[in-house]
């Protein structure tokens, strides 16, 4: 070993695996997207609302448990009669936990899924140019491809960015609410009864995140400038909604020409809140009149599946395929 260590030195180490390199791409992209203050605000809104949802579930749990502080509070302020009414309600609900717990979770989660889905649309508008557009305009694909990566690795890494961001917005809050909500509920059986809702939330979440992710990558690869990419994103959804609306008067499946409608339909079908309400009518005849009035108040409950779930799924797959086509054509090293 010479005394002088100046000049070029060789590297002798073990190189990383391909997955580590893909993760490096995703991490770099996440760092870039996270710099946006607006995005941080959107995240704050979503998680604060999730906290609100958690609080709601906690309160319901408290209502149902016989010796809770909430009941004591009601007793003190509204008199023993109010407490008795609430007690009675609670007893009915506890008799049929599969309807009440399951239905409750499904109801709140389907609202939340739809809300977070809409919010993620806006969130993507905030970072869509940073995905691929900027790389296209500065010819970064050329640099990426000349490294130990293929186009597929690059796209996988980029997909990882949008997948992580959207999962943190749409899936993670619901999972956390489910866990903490059940942990703070009066009975361990709530975990069991709430489980279907969790699975549905995960399924709907994954479908939403994957498809919106692919669309985001596609739009990002079609534009080279920041303003163009954001404009394309917003325009794409507006136009597809318009087209779906117009063509639904002509064709019965016209409304599926908008991916947003497909996602909404799939979400409704999987959550099947209307089905729960139907079931509840049979099981809890006391509440029939209330339950029957609900559909008028909420579109989610009113939406009954008209066709099988496969129609929107097929349309959605078609859109995803188009997105993949656009991405593979546009992401080329120049």
């Amino acid at each position, binding site marked *: 070993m010479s005394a002088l260590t100046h000049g*070029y030195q060789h590297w002798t180490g073990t190189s990383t695996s*391909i997955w580590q390199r893909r993760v490096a791409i995703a991490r*770099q992209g996440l760092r870039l997207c996270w710099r946006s203050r607006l995005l941080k605000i959107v995240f704050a809104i979503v998680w604060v609302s999730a906290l609100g949802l958690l609080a709601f579930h906690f309160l319901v749990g408290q209502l149902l448990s016989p010796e809770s502080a909430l009941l004591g509070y009601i007793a003190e302020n509204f008199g023993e009669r109010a407490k008795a009414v609430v007690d009675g309600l609670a007893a009915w609900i506890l008799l049929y936990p599969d309807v009440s717990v399951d239905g409750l979770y499904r109801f709140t989660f389907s609202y939340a899924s739809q809300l977070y889905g809409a919010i993620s649309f806006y969130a993507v508008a905030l970072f869509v140019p940073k995905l691929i557009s900027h790389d296209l305009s500065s010819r970064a694909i050329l640099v990426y491809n*000349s490294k130990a990566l293929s186009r597929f690795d690059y796209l996988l890494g980029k997909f990882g960015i949008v997948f992580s961001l959207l999962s943190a917005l749409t899936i993670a809050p619901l999972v956390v609410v489910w866990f903490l909500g059940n942990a703070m509920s009066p009975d361990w059986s709530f975990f069991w009864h709430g489980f279907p809702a969790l699975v549905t939330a995960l399924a709907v979440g994954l479908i939403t995140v994957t498809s919106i992710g692919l669309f985001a990558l596609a739009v990002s690869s079609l534009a080279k400038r920041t303003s163009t990419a954001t404009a394309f994103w917003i325009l794409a959804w507006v136009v597809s909604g318009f087209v779906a609306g117009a063509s639904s008067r002509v064709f019965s499946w016209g409304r599926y020409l908008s991916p947003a409608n497909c996602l909404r339909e799939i979400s409704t079908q999987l959550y099947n809140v209307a089905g729960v309400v139907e079931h509840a009518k049979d099981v809890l005849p006391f509440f029939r009149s209330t339950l029957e009035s609900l559909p008028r108040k909420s579109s989610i409950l009113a939406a009954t599946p008209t066709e099988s779930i496969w129609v929107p799924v097929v349309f959605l797959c078609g859109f995803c395929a188009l997105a993949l086509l656009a991405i593979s054509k546009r992401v080329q090293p120049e």
Partner: protein
Amino acid sequence: MRPIIETQGLSKRFGRHQALDRVDLKIEPGTVGLLGPNGAGKSTLIRCLLQLENKDSGQASLLGQDIDLHGREVRKRIGYAPEQDCHIPGMAGCEYVTYCAQLSGLPFDDARQRAHEMLDFVGMGQERYRLVETYSTGMKQRIKIAQAIVHDPELVFLDEPTNGLDPSGQAHILELIERIWKESGISVVLSSHLLPDVDRICEQIVIVAQGRVLVHDRLEALKRRRKPVAELTVHGPAGDLVEAFGRHGWPSEVLGNGHIKVAHGQETLNPMIAFLRDRRVAPLEIKASPNALHELFMQALQSRGVTP
């Protein structure tokens, strides 16, 4: 020694234009100059080797590994500094080079360390903390070279590395490229139109035209095969000297820049030095075959009937 680049029957066509036509090459380690007219297939060759384009047919291997089977993994040991302006947006210089090292298989800590070492090697100071978008042309060229060698490759492709630089910038980059081979033993494939630079740095020459390899040899060997020519710079009028050379049997002429070109045909300059000593002429300098590469290049193209 294992050849760094080997191709058999490599072909690539763009529409009606045959960019590469059954190219067979076997290049030994060292510094290689890749020359050819515009549109000859130089960049297509590099792009096919790096899998930036899909070749139509033929086989190619880099560093002994077939690119179809191990293309992605062999690029862990290959660097590329493209001709075009390209970088990954949104990062400072040192972040960019670190990231490039990670993409080539270095773990983060090693990547960060080597990034700074390489930025020192290419002569970048505090600019490394600024965004790459704000760099001048000279700095962009340097950082291109830094990201090409940060992962300690065995082979580096440099495409017109002095493009757009002013003369001092060109000199620095050339010095840098010389050091890459001499100090570190990394093989360099230099694709350039500036023949004097290639002459100075490259030991092997590959001339490509119309998708085919016209010449592939060591520069020494190519030069030795030519009739030796010298270029003299003298103080004072050159006319008499030209006449004297002519009478001695060495055809010579005065060039546009005032130098005298003498086709002396001797292996060394000693006979000419003796001649000048006898005539009591003391030139400022005698350059041997300064335009050799240029003439070799033109000759190669003309002999195969390549017209501009």
